[in-house]
């Protein structure tokens, strides 16, 4: 069996230009060495505060950005990935390695290959008001993937569009409307329809509910779960709202300053968070219960800028358990049993609990 998606040490840096001659002076290390595996058919939650690079990671996977380093394997048999890993160990120059990567590694794709990729991978943006072309009809917006990828056009495309439109809870009466004639929730439904019309296997949901109202949010979440079941989709659910992620996703990864600090099955991470940042993050979510009041903020200070992140463990300046080693060395993600990975010296120094 193979993973739906496997990231190996993925990096994406955005250059900053400055100085007299506008030379490249620094880089925003938005995604700085992320390695995760997403199982087929699961909903993989990606949580983090603003500027931690979660959205960039999503878009890099879709190859809307060109990664600076690392590998992206999408639905690649295990033996291939293993072979690549092995080859890289012995010599990076080998021709076979290059061939394999060009064939399987999305990071190396370009042009036509990417376009084919778009059928299998799609994205739903955070804010439907900006992600839908204001001068296009709903029909054309949703049909775009079909037409652009030459899957279908004309009447056929229109039929498929109407079909998917019904599926996401709108009617074919909406075909000839402009996006601004809809409410936020409906717009997001349109965006979902566009994402699913080409029947992808993997969909990235980038904060899909943060722009809609509380009462409508639940409708959308239900829609997502239904669609996932019916089209047997794999989701990557990017969000900063832990309460939603906890409910919708099977596994959760927590990101801080371009790195994954911890990932594990959902209830595991929410009931037994190991990384001090995860603990703080979960603790600072305001509980909707007036009888359970928290009197003090679990964390001081703010997220430092990703341009020059702290040495060693990026969390150490804010970390209550910071040790000297945290200031020098970067902790690696390590397995602590039952699919629970943490990158923290404090944790690893403790004895691993039996899973």
């Amino acid at each position, binding site marked *: 069996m193979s993973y739906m998606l496997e990231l190996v040490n993925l990096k994406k840096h955005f250059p900053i230009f400055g100085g007299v001659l506008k030379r490249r002076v620094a880089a925003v290390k938005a995604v700085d060495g992320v390695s995760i595996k997403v199982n087929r058919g699961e909903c993989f939650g990606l949580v983090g505060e603003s500027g931690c690079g979660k959205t960039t990671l999503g*878009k890099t996977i879709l190859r809307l950005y060109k990664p600076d380093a690392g590998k992206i394997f999408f639905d690649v048999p295990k033996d291939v990935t293993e072979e690549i890993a092995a080859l890289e160990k012995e010599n990076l120059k080998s021709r076979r390695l290059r061939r394999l990567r060009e064939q399987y590694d999305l990071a190396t794709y370009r042009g*036509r290959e990417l376009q084919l990729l778009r059928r299998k991978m799609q994205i739903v*943006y955070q804010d439907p008001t900006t*992600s839908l*072309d204001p001068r*296009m*009809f709903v029909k054309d917006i949703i049909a775009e993937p079909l037409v652009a*990828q030459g899957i279908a056009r004309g009447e056929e495309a229109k039929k498929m569009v109407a079909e998917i439109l019904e599926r996401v809870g709108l009617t074919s009466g909406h*075909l000839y409307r402009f996006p601004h004639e809809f409410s936020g929730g409906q717009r997001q439904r349109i*965006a979902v329809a566009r994402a699913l019309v080409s029947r992808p296997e993997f969909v990235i949901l980038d904060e899909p509910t943060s722009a809609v109202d509380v009462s409508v949010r639940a409708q959308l979440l239900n829609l997502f779960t239904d669609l996932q079941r019916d089209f047997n989709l794999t989701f990557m659910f990017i969000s900063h709202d832990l309460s939603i992620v906890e409910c919708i996703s099977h596994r959760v990864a927590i990101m801080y300053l371009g790195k994954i600090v911890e990932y594990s099955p959902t209830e595991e991470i929410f009931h037994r968070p190991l990384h001090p940042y995860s603990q703080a993050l979960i603790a600072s979510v305001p509980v909707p219960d007036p009888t359970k009041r928290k009197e003090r903020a679990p964390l001081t200070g703010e997220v430092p800028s990703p341009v020059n992140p702290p040495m060693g463990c990026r969390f150490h300046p804010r970390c209550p358990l910071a040790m000297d080693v945290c200031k020098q060395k970067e902790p690696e993600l390590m397995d602590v049993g039952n699919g629970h990975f943490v990158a923290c010296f404090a944790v690893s120094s403790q004895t691993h609990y039996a899973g």
Partner: protein
Amino acid sequence: MSERSRFDEFKAGMRPRLKEWRFMLKRMRESRLALAGIIIVLIFVGIAVFAPLLAPPHGDPFSVPQDMEILVIQTSPTPPSTRHIFGTTDQQYDLYYACIWGSITAFRTGLTVVAFSLIVGLTIGTLAAMYGGLLDEALMRFTDIIIAFPGLILAMALVIALPGIFAINLSLVFLLVLVVASFLLLIFHFDKKILLIVQLLLLLSLLSILFFPVQMNLSLTRLDKVLLSIALVGWPGYTRVIRGEVMRVKNEDFVEAARASGSSDFRIIVKHIWPNTIYPILIVATLDIGSIVLTAAAMSFIGLGADPNFADWGQIIQRARNWISNVDLIVANLHAFLIPGIFITFFVMGWNLLGDALRDVLDPMLRRR
């Protein structure tokens, strides 16, 4: 698909658009200035269209008739009379005729220059914004330079520098066109066949340049020179504006979404970027027509305009230059520049009002997202 369904398609597609246009018109009608603008422009369109009826030409319609019978008696202008409704300017050119046919010249001036600038601007501006890099850098620096000149001055310099006759090497032009074409094809990665054909043609034209160059002589009238020079000075401004607009739209989420759904750059530009940039550009263009006409008129006033007997408003006023030294002459021949001046002013004002109105109407729609 069948005709019927295609028609339904069309109907269904038009209904909401019409709704928007009606909304715009409603807004327009609400502001008096806008209405005034529309009316003025329409009047001038009318004049231009019915010029042959209003002032029936003899021979070349754009050469203003001279009244020889008066000319033998006097050269200085005659005031409005039954014989010449607006009177005559010196050398006894008929003012009325000149004003009527001048409106056509005005439209020609404004529209051609704008059209030229738009075409150049859209292509270069879009490419620069989309693919940045060297092209963008070069463009920006070049526009920096062009903008450093007061437009009128540079245009003047060009007018006197442009030769009357251009010897154009057609094969060279052909070559350039093909180069650009193949460049575009490469960017928009079309299928390889077309590219191959283009490159073959390229080779051919190269050979033709080397061995059997195809020459063509293109002669410019003085008016052509004026238009050309204004256009040459004007296009960088447009390119800059369009570049800016494309830049703005290019970073919108929906463009990225289109890319995510597998659209080619070409499709993105045509389907998403241009439709979303068109309104601001439209406004700029409308407002510019007025100032182009003004520049042209100013150049004629200095004496760099069309031929002396050409039906052009600025050209007539230009004759007033000789009277400046003697103020009384100006007063005496007031009508000779007052009337054409009024024509120019209203023409320009019409377009400016229209552009202003367009801005007021379209901006909220642009914001409405």
